[in-house]
């Protein structure tokens, strides 16, 4: 069931990274580097978004032989709309209040 609550700042950072390349499959390590979120925060967030049907995931074959398959994530259509809504809200809040500093990366 989708949550109607405002997502946390960490979730907004994650959604911003995901919506920037909405059609692409993204990996956990890449998302972690881009958002600055540690696996301790990132993976529970990814699991929560997937449980809310905002994210889909799949195992992707490795590009090089001998490496294990990687779990990749991508926004669903509903997830993209959700991300656009809340990241737009976050950007609007930032630009209207110069005191609020953007999150560190």
């Amino acid at each position, binding site marked *: 069931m989708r949550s109607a609550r405002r997502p946390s700042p960490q979730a907004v950072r994650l959604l911003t990274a995901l919506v920037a390349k909405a059609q692409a499959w993204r*990996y*956990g*390590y890449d998302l*972690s580097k881009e958002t600055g979120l*540690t*696996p*301790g*925060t*990132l*993976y*529970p967030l*990814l*699991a929560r978004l997937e449980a809310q049907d905002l994210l889909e*995931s799949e195992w992707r074959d490795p590009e090089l032989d001998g*490496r*294990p*398959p*990687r*779990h990749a994530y991508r926004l669903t259509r509903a997830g993209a709309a959700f991300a656009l809504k809340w990241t737009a809200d976050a950007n609007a809040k930032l630009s209207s209040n110069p005191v609020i500093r953007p999150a560190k990366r």
Partner: protein
Amino acid sequence: MTRPLALVLGRHAARVLYPVRPLQAKAMLAELDYVEDGDSLAWAFGCLMASYRQRMSLLAVGIVAAQLCVASAAGVFGFLHAYVSFENLRAKIMLLTGLQPSPAPGSFLYAIDSYPLEHWVWIFLVFTTGGMLHVIAAIMMAIGSNRKVLPLAIVIVAFDLVAPLAASPHLVPAIFPAIYIGLITLMAIVAAGFVWLWRWDERRLAGTAGL
């Protein structure tokens, strides 16, 4: 150097989380293979935090605490048996060689002197073996290997039943085995209970436990 340690931590994290979130556990561990060497340890610690955070529950903490209490009691019980029987044997040897075990009350010395050396040697062997088996069972429980407590309990019960048959005539055959058999059986039942509770908690966190 950091990569092997990161792998150890990553695998432990995956083992902790797997019963609750198997897909996430596998995903985190697979991703570790693609993390750069410099980031691998930080990544592995992050995975560990994620695993413990999602596996933690009040019941899990209670089970671990109770496990450690029972294991401590069993460990002290086993160690004391080995230690006291060793001290008795040492006192007997000292008395036989004309030395005075010190400090020792008169009643203790009388009791030691009343039985032959072979009695105390036998007591030492039986109590140390039984005591060490209890210590091993305690260690298994303390590290969470509760499933190994039952086979150990069976060994201890068998030992408690067989040992008195070959005992010195001064060994009391009826009471001692009954006490030890009772205690280790209780420990095995408690360990089995912990295993059941732990699995139930995992299923509850995974969203699959029935009421």
